């Protein structure tokens, strides 16, 4: 197991490093930081702009490969470079990431748990009222983009506030009540997706020989499903972890934006518009690390859930 994990960790690290490097090279080649600095009023002298770009390792006259070497050496030392305004990228990335995590993580965990429960419930009651209610609902909910869901939630909250006559529900601050609406939106979107897969994977194993054996032993259907079918039915869910991580990262950016938070999404959009290569590379690098990390977590989870993949 240790050797397997070590190999997988090495592969994930290689993927993350390659992904982050590609992102930096793309951003360095495609973005134009000079226009932003030179476009200020009053217009600074060219020499000033050039000196500033050179100091920030953004000089367009230096080939991207040379800039990349400077950037990569910095990243290895834990220095992500500086933004166009000369502030260090690292602390800003940290702050923006915290905004997103506060907004997304509780909803994602809650939604996954709810989705698994709903999926198993719908599968256990296949064709009965509960299934006929839950399945179409999750189907439509899964097709509603998260930013539409967020606006709908705000509209509903606005109606509640109007009816109550006070601002009972707010969503602009990071207090517990201010985080309620974003958490709810993420949880609903996540639950709908998870429930659809969970229902399918539970039905796939519900008729397997080992579940029938458990029933033949005298276990009730409910106990057989929970004790014997739930665990194998979670395996496909674990395999979707990298995909979920990528979705949540993008969904988080969109939800942040709809709820007026200045998180990673707003920073990325502004940085692309400014041509701020170091900031764009930081956000991209984060994403490029998140997916391989999630893939690694999925491998570990698979090992925990499925004893057959564990070497003796």
């Amino acid at each position: 197991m240790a050797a397997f994990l070590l190999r997988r960790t090495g592969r994930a690290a290689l993927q993350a490093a390659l992904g982050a490097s590609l992102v930096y090279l793309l951003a360095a080649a495609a973005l134009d930081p000079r226009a932003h600095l030179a476009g200020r009023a009053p217009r600074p002298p060219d020499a000033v702009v050039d000196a500033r770009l050179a100091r920030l390792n953004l000089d367009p006259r230096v080939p991207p490969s040379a800039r990349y070497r400077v950037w990569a050496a910095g990243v290895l030392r834990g220095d992500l470079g500086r933004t166009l305004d000369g502030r260090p990228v690292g602390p800003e990335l940290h702050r923006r990431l915290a905004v997103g995590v506060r907004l997304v993580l509780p909803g994602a965990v809650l939604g996954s748990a709810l989705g698994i429960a709903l999926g198993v419930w719908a599968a256990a009651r296949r064709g009965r009222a509960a299934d006929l209610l839950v399945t179409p609902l999750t189907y439509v909910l899964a097709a509603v983009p998260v930013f539409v869901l967020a606006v709908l939630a705000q509209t509903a909250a606005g109606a509640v506030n109007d009816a109550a006559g006070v601002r009972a529900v707010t969503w602009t601050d990071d207090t517990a009540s201010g985080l309620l609406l974003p958490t709810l939106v993420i949880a609903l979107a996540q639950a709908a997706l998870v429930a659809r897969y969970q229902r399918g994977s539970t039905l796939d194993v519900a008729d397997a020989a080992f579940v029938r054996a458990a029933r033949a032993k005298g276990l009730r259907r409910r106990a057989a499903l929970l004790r014997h079918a739930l665990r194998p039915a979670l395996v496909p869910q674990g395999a979707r972890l990298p995909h979920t991580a990528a979705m949540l990262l993008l969904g988080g950016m969109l939800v942040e934006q709809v709820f007026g938070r200045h998180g990673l999404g707003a920073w990325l959009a502004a940085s692309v518009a400014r041509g701020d290569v170091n900031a764009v590379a930081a956000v991209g690098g984060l994403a490029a690390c998140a997916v391989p990390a999630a893939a690694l977590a999925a491998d570990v989870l698979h090992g925990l859930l499925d004893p057959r993949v564990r070497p003796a």
Partner: protein
Amino acid sequence: MTRVAAGLVLLAALALLAAAGPALAPWAWDEIDFTAFGEGPSRRHWLGTTQHGRDVFAVTVHALRRSLLIGAAVAALATFLAALVGTVAGYAGGRADRALMWCADLLFVLPPFLLAAVLAPGAGTLALVAVLAGLMWTSTARMVRAAVRSLRDREHVLAARLAGVSAPRTIVRHVLPALASLLAVDAGLNVGAAIVAESGLAHLGFGVRPPGVSLGALVADGGPAVLAFPWRFAFPAALLVLTAVAANLLADGLRDALDPR
């Protein structure tokens, strides 16, 4: 089968609306009514106007047309790429297989919104289509590869190879037809996914460039003002969700109908 029918009917209705809507609307999509800024639905403007005095119905059906075209183009291109890479990797096996799948893995690691953000601005809708398709083909390619690997050793393919048929011809004549249903289903799913993906990009400001409009751009535009001007948000958002539901219904229904399990 009812799902396929429902999806088809819904998609046909949307396509009809996109095709005939601009002719139905009494206003052109880029026409500005200087007497009506941000007004609610009325007989003059069926679904109200935007803050710039554009007719919401006219703009939205125009955007629907644009979004459907983008979705169809992305799905066609992504499915083509997936079929190409998946069959070559699955059929050739060995080193070519490993190299191609490694590239697909790397593309999955790269953040899609970032690529679109960095590459698409400045370029037109075609670049947007290329970027979206370039990011969406990898999962389909993986499925195609798996299917081709099992098809490769079937009798009818072996017979063709033994008869001296060249590899490309074998793939086109004997392998691809067996994959047609899988590809059709995935293309359907990709249409919906591409339209939603473009909407997400539009929210971050990286979608279709103004003055062009897509459903996503309209939703992103109307969302923040939804409490004051609900009509600017409701119609485009409803069409966006309907399109996604229709594409999913069609694809899921087809998959279940074609999959003998």
